[in-house]
């Protein structure tokens, strides 16, 4: 009797298991897109990234614009603002299941990785034509929308660039001018580090920030983090020197030791409250203001270079930072989705949205608007146009960010704990990161 039962139960389990598996394999989305027909009455889902001071703030900024779009086209857009901590995982889940939004924002450094998954609609010439043409966008912004030599997987929506923010009063009191080379910055920072104030603040536990800075510092030395075939080259002398230069801000005492654990934008707080005289940040005007510092109290200059007036790679002072707009390939409303992309990248919308978020329009025509002629945005726009380079657009970019970003974070921790950070220890850390990169 008992064996009978066991047998029956096993058979049942097996049968159920098989049916469930069959179901799992069968839910295949044909991805047939509604083309040609009317897009009126269609509802699009739009995943927006968090650009404002809060998710609610984003909703307040975007909702009136989406209403405008609905009035113009009859297409309703369902908005969901997603925090940065969740966005990539949500996109990955949507990619795996094929059940995702129609249009979405992505961090532009993810472009090549997401492009490699094949989840995003490539912007070939016909898709670009549908949204008004490729040459409306700044070339550097387009270069950060996918791997070179392939149709971009996205179009740029908001652009940003790094600049060196400095406290005017602290510089004037010390009789200093904003630095143009790293040697000058080091001298200034040491001079400004007195009485509980520090020369500069860095966001040591934020892996992405770390990556953005060591990328520029390496680029200025003519080094990349990947070779032309996409293989990691983390341990070149130039990359080691770049990481060491960045970590030395804490090791040399120019930045507070506590900066090593900063990961919640405390850098901006320190700068705005006068605890630090300088910081390297992207489009920080809104956040600085939120902490009570007025625009006339600080200035923005390009991030220093190794030698004054350097050009080419040596003159790169920023990554191309920004947000891209993508269409999910499995969307059933491709035409409506492209109409929405066209709307969001139209000159009037670019002006409204970028002004609201304190970013720079990647659509060149929109850049002339007075909203972007403030002293700081003028500097950042010129950086973006002249001395910004996109992060490596390789499929393994996100692994690079994680592994090297963490390695730099750990090196900061060493420096803050008083352990000496040497070329050898930096190289060992980078070697470890590189050996954990997946073969590609």
């Amino acid at each position: 009797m008992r064996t009978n039962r066991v047998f029956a139960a096993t058979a049942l389990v097996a049968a159920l298991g098989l049916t469930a598996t069959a179901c799992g394999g069968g839910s295949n989305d044909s991805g047939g897109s509604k083309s040609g027909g009317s897009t009126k009455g269609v509802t699009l889902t739009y995943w927006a990234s968090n650009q404002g001071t809060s998710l609610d703030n984003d909703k307040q900024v975007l909702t009136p614009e989406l209403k405008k779009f609905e009035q113009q086209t009859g297409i309703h857009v369902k908005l969901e603002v997603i925090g940065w901590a969740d966005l990539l995982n949500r996109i990955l889940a949507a990619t795996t299941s094929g059940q995702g939004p129609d249009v979405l924002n992505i961090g532009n450094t993810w472009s090549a990785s997401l492009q490699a998954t094949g989840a995003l609609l490539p912007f070939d010439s016909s898709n670009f034509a549908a949204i008004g043409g490729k040459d409306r966008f700044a070339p550097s912004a387009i270069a950060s929308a996918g791997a070179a030599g392939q149709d971009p997987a996205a179009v740029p929506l908001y652009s940003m660039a790094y600049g060196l923010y400095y406290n005017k009063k602290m510089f004037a009191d010390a009789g200093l001018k904003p630095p143009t080379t790293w040697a000058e910055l080091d001298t200034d920072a040491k001079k400004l580090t007195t009485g509980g104030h520090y020369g500069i603040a860095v966001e040591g536990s934020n892996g992405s920030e770390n990556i953005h800075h060591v990328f520029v510092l390496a680029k200025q030395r003519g080094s990349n983090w990947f070779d032309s075939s996409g293989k990691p080259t983390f341990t070149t002398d130039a990359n080691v020197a770049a990481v060491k230069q960045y970590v030395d801000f804490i090791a040399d005492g120019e930045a507070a030791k506590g900066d090593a654990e900063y990961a919640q934008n405390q850098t901006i707080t320190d700068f705005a409250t006068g605890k630090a005289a300088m910081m390297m940040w992207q489009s920080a005007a809104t956040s600085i203001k939120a902490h009570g510092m007025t625009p006339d109290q600080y200035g923005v200059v390009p991030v220093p270079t190794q030698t004054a007036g350097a050009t080419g790679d040596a003159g790169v002072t920023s990554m191309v930072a920004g947000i891209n707009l993508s269409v999910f390939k499995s969307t059933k409303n491709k035409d409506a989705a492209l109409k929405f992309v066209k709307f969001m990248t139209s000159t009037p919308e670019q002006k409204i949205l970028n002004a609201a978020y304190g970013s720079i329009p990647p659509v060149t025509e929109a850049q002339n608007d007075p909203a972007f002629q403030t002293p700081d945005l003028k500097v950042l726009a010129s950086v973006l146009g002249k001395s910004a380079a996109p992060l490596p657009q390789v499929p393994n970019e996100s692994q690079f960010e994680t592994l090297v970003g963490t390695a730099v974070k750990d090196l900061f921790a060493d420096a803050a704990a008083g352990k000496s950070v040497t070329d050898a220890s930096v190289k060992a850390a980078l070697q470890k990161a590189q050996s954990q990169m997946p073969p590609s």
Partner: protein
Amino acid sequence: MTATAPPRSASEAGPDSGKSAGRGRLRPRIPQRLRNIALPYLLLLPALALELLIHIVPMVFGILISFKSLTLFYIRHWSSAPWAGFDNYKIAVKIHQPIGQALLHSFWVTIAFTVLSVGLSWLIGTAAAILMQDTFRGRALLRAIFLVPYALPVYAAVITWTFMFQQNTGLVNHVLHDQLHVTSDKPFWLIGGNSFWALVIVSVWKSWPFAFLALMAGLQNIPRELYEAAAMDGAGVWQQIRKITMPSLRPVNQVLVLVLFLWTFNDFNTPYVMFGQSAPHQADLISIHIYQSSFITWNFGSGSAMSVLLLLFLLLVTAVYLLITSRRRGDADA
């Protein structure tokens, strides 16, 4: 089970066959014996189906994925990812290669963390439960307060700890350095070596109330007469605890320690909220490590293989633990 089943089924079948006239035609064809066997399974079916859907199917898929090289190039059509055989496993267990070495390091960190956390949680929980065994004024209130960490949402609790552990502005350093002058410098808690201890502290704070709760319930079942008899025989408090309380709590402890072990070993929320996506080297718990290996680096095959290895390890530990503790209990009972 076999002894009780037949009479129960018979009584259930009796009134049923009388009522349902419509199905009466079909009934005789199914032998009574089969009906008796089938009924319990029929009743179990909904539960089984859900169990399959929620637990077994995802597990099977996880195991399946661990044999595939599922990277970002394939997640869109993941069933078409190439089979990797045991490659993912080989990479994970090659302890002289970087990925295996990192996994092993993470494994040892997790073991140390788990042993410390479970040990301390159990110790504090037991001490508190025994101290609160006798009635006194305010006992109910204290009990309620003790249970607060267990009742708080994990995120809110841990993020508060993270603020307290901040080097510059945190409460912990304010007390240790500014008020008590215990440390000459403000130590870091969220990066470097101390991050391990910060993790242990938060984990113990979070899990000891559960130990307390379980042991408190266990203590209710010990007859007071035992203590009275022991006291008459001249046994002191310590002897009472050692000779009466602890042996009586053995069945509770057996389950409690196992559950705490499994929870702590697999804890993801605490390190994730404290350190974000990249934990410091010294506090690199295996759950975060596997998360990084799969979600951050988009190598789901490798992450799944590590998960399966973890599952096997935990199964082994659980089996050995149950075997040893049950045998010991069997000895004690005999």
